[in-house]
């Protein structure tokens, strides 16, 4: 067949391929890829005990208990609570009500042995004084 | 009577207008009518091969245009009507000779017997079961030049066809070129030797 038709065929084939690729990628993003699981995810999915995974959530208020190096706290995503115990230094961003990501493995259904604790940081930067003023006015929404 | 003996009825004309390649040559123009043969002569590295590759449409000139049959060349159609044989012979060293014939059959969609007939003319048919890399340089050159017979192309662009050919090989080449011109064919050769009575361009 004439080269012009061949060229047209190949280009349209390429465009159709691109369409399929983008369509496939968009399907995947509907249920977005997870960097870490939330406590509620964990309860639904069956996880092998020795499988390493990451769990993220907000540190529950006054759940932080500290005995020397050993630290236990609860993280929540306003649906499920997961008990975490961790031995080692906590990053200085770690605070109750603060987002956190822990890496480790699930020793019992609701007890998580964390090997590393990563403090997640939301995107607002604000001086201390302004933060305190907001708190007094009760505008401050501490946990998201 | 292989298919390449049919005379070319169509009015053929190659016209090259002020093409140039950086640091090699600039504003070179020449035209070639039917039954004409042009010789490109020049020292090593003068750009003979680059000029031939450009006329064959393998390299884009930085300026200037080529015309075939009066209009600006349309690359895929133009390359259908030319046969380029370069320094590297376009053969598969590990393949057997008969494999090479199959490959050409698939590549150029030419009947196998036509290719084999061309091999007979160049006298390399008996080496069918030999690996090409075991053939001598001259035999490989003949094999590469056998395509002149198996493909009916009006415009021949040959880069130093005489190199590594023995006396008999050269004679076959001369005859083929002569017969090609009688059938209104065109040919451009690049060579070191001076050919008596042939139009030439020195780079």
């Amino acid at each position, binding site marked *: 067949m004439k080269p012009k038709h061949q060229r047209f065929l190949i280009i349209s084939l390429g465009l159709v391929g691109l369409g399929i690729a983008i369509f496939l990628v968009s399907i995947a993003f509907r249920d*977005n890829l*997870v960097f870490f699981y939330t406590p509620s995810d964990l309860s639904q999915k069956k996880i092998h005990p020795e499988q390493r995974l990451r769990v*993220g959530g907000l540190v529950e208020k006054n759940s932080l208990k500290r005995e020397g190096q050993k630290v236990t706290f609860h993280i929540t995503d306003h649906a499920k609570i997961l008990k975490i115990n961790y031995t080692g230094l906590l990053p200085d961003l770690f605070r109750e009500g603060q987002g956190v990501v822990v890496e480790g493995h699930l020793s019992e259904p609701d007890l998580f042995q964390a090997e590393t604790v990563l403090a*997640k940081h939301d995107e607002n*930067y604000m*001086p201390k004084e302004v933060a305190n003023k907001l708190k007094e006015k009760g505008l401050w929404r501490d946990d998201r | 009577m292989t298919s390449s003996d049919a005379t070319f009825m169509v009015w053929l004309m190659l016209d090259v207008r002020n093409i140039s390649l*950086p*640091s090699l040559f600039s504003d070179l123009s020449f035209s070639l009518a039917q039954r004409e043969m042009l010789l490109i002569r020049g020292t090593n590295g003068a750009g003979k091969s680059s000029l031939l590759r450009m006329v064959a449409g393998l390299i884009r000139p930085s300026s200037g245009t080529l015309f075939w049959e009066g209009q600006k060349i349309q690359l895929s159609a133009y390359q259908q009507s030319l046969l380029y044989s370069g320094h590297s012979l376009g053969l598969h060293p590990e393949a057997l000779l008969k494999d090479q014939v199959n490959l050409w059959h698939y590549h150029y969609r030419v009947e196998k017997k036509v290719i084999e007939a061309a091999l007979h003319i160049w006298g390399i048919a008996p080496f069918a079961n030999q690996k090409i890399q075991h053939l001598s340089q001259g035999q490989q050159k003949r094999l590469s030049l056998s395509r002149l017979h198996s493909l009916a192309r009006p415009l021949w662009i040959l880069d130093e066809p005489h190199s590594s050919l023995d006396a008999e090989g050269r004679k076959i080449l001369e005859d083929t070129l002569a017969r090609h011109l009688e059938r209104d064919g065109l040919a451009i050769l690049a060579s070191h030797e001076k050919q008596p009575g042939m139009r030439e361009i020195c780079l």
Partner: protein
Amino acid sequence: MKFTLAKPRYFFKITNFLFPLALVLGALCFAAGLYSALVTSPPDYQQGDAMRIMYIHVPASWMALFCYGALALFSLFVLVWRHPFAEILAISVAPIGALFTVLSLVTGSLWGKPMWGTYWVWDARLTSVLVLLFLYGGYWALYKAYAHSAQGIRAASLLALIGVINLPIIKGSVDWWNTLHQPASITKFGGPSIHPSMLLPLGLMTAAYGFYFLVLFILRARTELNKRKLLVQGNLS
């Protein structure tokens, strides 16, 4: 390579004027930026002083992306219009971009230690910036691998254009996957969620980086041009 003198002489004319200006303005912005970043601006309500690395990290990352964008644009010129001058611009911008990427990665991981608790985590944004660094490296290796720079630049330009797909991935990686790296603070729809008192030093530092880039870029381009001139006159191998 036939040397089209029209474009470069024009380039020399502008840079003679632009170079000192960029130098002075750059120094000024840098001084003002550093002063306001380290001294006057208040510590962050969460991170305290650890946040000051942002003033180095964020402009460096922006400049790294900007340089790759410029590199891709020049590569387009090299490939489509075969413009010899675009080659000189492309070669000048590539190393500067690599420098900014390294700076952004180093300051990012230094900042990660106090904030996240680890120097490096295989997170979408960090990985794609690392890929950007590899693309810069690949570009340079390919350019240098060729004997003739005319061939080398065209191969490298194709690689640069293929690598452009990485830019949206870096930009979008933060909000596609809920990664550890915080989402964009400046380009948020509801207006920047940075307190104005911190926005000023950031702006100054970015301007300082911009002028610094200009200075480096002009220097590199002129040396490359002069090298080509000498090459053409044949007394430089």
